[in-house]
Structures are given as C-alpha cells and as structure tokens.
C-alpha cells in the first residue's frame, strides 16, 4: 500500500492534480453514502501521498468547513434542521474543538494515528446499525423546554412535533465530538448524530441535518488554532478543499437517483482497511 508515489518524487502539477482527484472521489463517495468524505482524507493523504500528519489534518479540517457550508442550502430549505438545538450544542462542540486542537499539538503522531484508526472503525460500524424507533408518549423534559429545544418539522401528514430529552448527556457527547473533530481534523458527524438521535431522542432527519449545520462552526473553532500553529498549508489545502467541495456537491446531486446500498458496503470496506492501516502505522510508530 505504501510506497506508491515514493519511487520518484512528484512535481507540483502532478501532486496537485492527484490530490485533487483523490479528494474529489472521497467527497463524492462520502456524500453519496452519507458517511462523510472527511474521515478518509487524512488516511488518503498520509498513507498514499506521504503527507505529514499535521498538514493532512489541517487540509482535511478546511475541506470539512467547505462541505458543511456548501451543502447547508440543500438541507436547510427542507425545514428539518433545528437552529436552537444547533446553536445550544455548538457551545459544547466549539469548546471541545478548541481543546482538541490544542491536544493535537501535544499528542504524539502515533497516538493520533491510533485514535484515528479507532474512529474509522467506529464510523464503519455505526453506518450499518439500524435502531428501532419507539415513539413513546413521554411528558416534555423540563430542561429541554426551558432551553426551547423542542421543535417541529414538516411530515407527510402535516407538522410533526417532537420533544428533546437528556440534554446533559447530549451536551457531554457533543463536547467529545468537538474534541475529536479538533484532534483529528474531521467533521465527526457520526458522533454528533449519535448524541442527538440516540441520547437526546431527536428525530433522525432533524439530527442529521442539524449535525451538518453544526460541523462548519465546530471546525472553524479549531481552524484558528491550526492556522496559528502552521498546520494549514495553502498549496496542499487548495486541491483537497476544491476536490472535496466539487465531489460532495456532485454526490448530493446524484444521491437521489442511485441505489447506494452496494456502494455504501464498498466504501465501508475501504474505511475499515484504512482504519487497520492507520492502527498498524500508529502501533509501529511509522508516523
């Protein structure tokens, strides 16, 4: 797997084009399968292009902001996202992201690689779990009502109202999601959805769209730290950001028209393989 581009050095044009094309494919598959492209960017850059881990994390984080903001229009207009839930939980994710960004300076690269490998495995496993949805009649949660988190969204048969529960649990998981985002340069959308959908009992569609909405703000909170630490290299981040942005926009367009089950399985397989490679590299100290 490694050593692909090692035999002869690539010049600027070749390198930029190949990184752009790889990022485009990652963004396309990420949007198409709903797994997000950000999670495969760092392994792609470090394993195949031998980019230093810190530069890879910086470029990945920047592209995460681009996809989150670029696709917001498509999600928001459907009326599913809940702006109060998003803003309230962003207090947790941005503080977490700040802590994560500081940690990424302190944690040795091999440690980051191991955490990254575990995160990849986790993302792959969540993507195949289907959760039985039981809508039990429960009185509204006092704290959630006070924070005005309960909301509504348009459903096939009119407006559907929902209540939000277990706010402290969700808030804590969000802090963790933010920290992972800042540590690894990813959107950590999977963990954000878990916090909202599983812990806080927010309807799935509301969780996914609100999560996408939050990813950009969360990533911006670590981007400043990355910038001042010199992690964001314009010559590398340029092809990554442009590739992922175009790929994900194409992916969301195609999404409605294709059968994605098989593709999802293949992409999950790729994520598992990259996870194993990251773990191996982490444990052998190859970073």
């Amino acid at each position, binding site marked *: 797997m490694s050593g692909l581009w090692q035999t002869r050095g690539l010049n*600027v044009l070749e390198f930029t084009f190949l990184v752009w094309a790889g990022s485009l494919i990652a963004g396309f598959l990420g949007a198409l399968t709903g797994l997000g492209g950000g999670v495969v960017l760092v392994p792609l850059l470090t394993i195949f292009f031998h980019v230093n*881990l810190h530069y890879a994390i910086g470029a990945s984080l920047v592209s995460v902001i681009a996809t989150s903001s670029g696709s917001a229009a498509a999600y928001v207009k459907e009326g599913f996202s809940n702006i109060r839930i998003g803003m309230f939980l962003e207090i947790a994710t941005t503080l977490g992201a*700040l802590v994560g960004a500081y940690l990424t300076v302190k944690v040795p690269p091999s440690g980051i690689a191991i955490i990254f490998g575990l995160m990849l495995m986790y993302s792959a496993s969540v993507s195949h779990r289907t959760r039985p949805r039981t809508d039990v009649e429960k009185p509204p949660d006092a704290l959630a009502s006070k924070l*005005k988190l309960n909301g509504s969204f348009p459903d096939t048969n009119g407006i559907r*109202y929902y209540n939000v529960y277990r706010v402290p649990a969700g808030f804590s998981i969000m802090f963790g999601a933010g920290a992972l985002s800042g540590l690894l340069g990813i959107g950590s959308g999977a963990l954000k959805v878990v916090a909202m959908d599983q812990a806080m009992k927010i309807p799935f569609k509301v969780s996914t769209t609100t999560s996408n909405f939050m990813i950009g703000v969360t990533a911006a909170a670590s981007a400043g730290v990355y910038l001042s*630490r010199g992690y*964001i290299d314009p010559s590398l981040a340029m092809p990554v950001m442009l590739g992922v942005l175009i790929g994900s926009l194409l992916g969301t367009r195609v999404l409605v028209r294709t059968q994605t089950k098989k593709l999802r399985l293949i992409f999950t397989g790729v994520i598992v393989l990259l996870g194993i490679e990251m773990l191996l590299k982490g444990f052998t100290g190859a970073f």
Partner: protein
Amino acid sequence: MVTPPNRDDGRSFREWYEQKMENTIADLLRAGVLLSAFVVIAGAVLYLGAHPLAHVAYRTFAGEPEQLKNVHGIVRSAFSGQARGIMQMGLLLLIATPVARVVFSILAFAVERDHMYVVFTLIVLSVLLYSLFGSFLIA
C-alpha cells in the same frame, strides 16, 4: 406520536420567521464558500503557473512561514500578490464563513428578543474569535 409541547400564541410567527432566517443563513454560507473557492482558484492559477515542475515536500512538518499563520499576515501577503498568500486568504474566507453565520444568528435572535439565545450565540462567537485571534496566547 409525541405530545406537542405547550406553545405560545406567537408560535406560528416564530416558525415562519425562523425558516426565513435559516434560508438566509444557507444563502450566506453558500456565498461564503463560492467567494472563498474563487479566491483559492485565483491563487492556484498563479501558484501552479509559477513553478509547476518544482518538487513537493510534505513528508516532514516544518510549519508555515510567519506571514501565513495569522490573519493580519495573510491579508497583507495576499494583497501583495503572493500566490500562496492569495490561496491562504481564500481559506481564511472559508474559515470566516461560519463565523459570519454566527454573527448573523446573534442579530436574528436579538430581533426575536430571545435573550437566552443571544447569550448562547455570543458564547459560541467568543470561542471562534478566541481561536482566530487569541489562540497564540497558549503555547
């Protein structure tokens, strides 16, 4: 189905207002991304044209030069026409896009007289501004 929570009389207005607000935010985000992509592409054309056959070195971490590490330096470098400075300026605009969204949300919550959410949003904004302008304070 879940029991609808208690709603006040202004509810339908609130729903309408918030959907409008979210649509505006979405347009703002898209405009920010487009602008940033445009600046990055302009810088990329200059950068690729200047030394297309040079060799890349990303294996070891050297960090960025001082002028590409802070807001002031990036803006100055971009306006002096340096290719890498212009690309970094585009990336900075991208990072600023969610910040603009948060600023807009503060105004929107203020119009709604939702003081609690004005405070929440101000907290988020101060974390973002700290990261962009003050994060060098902790070594």
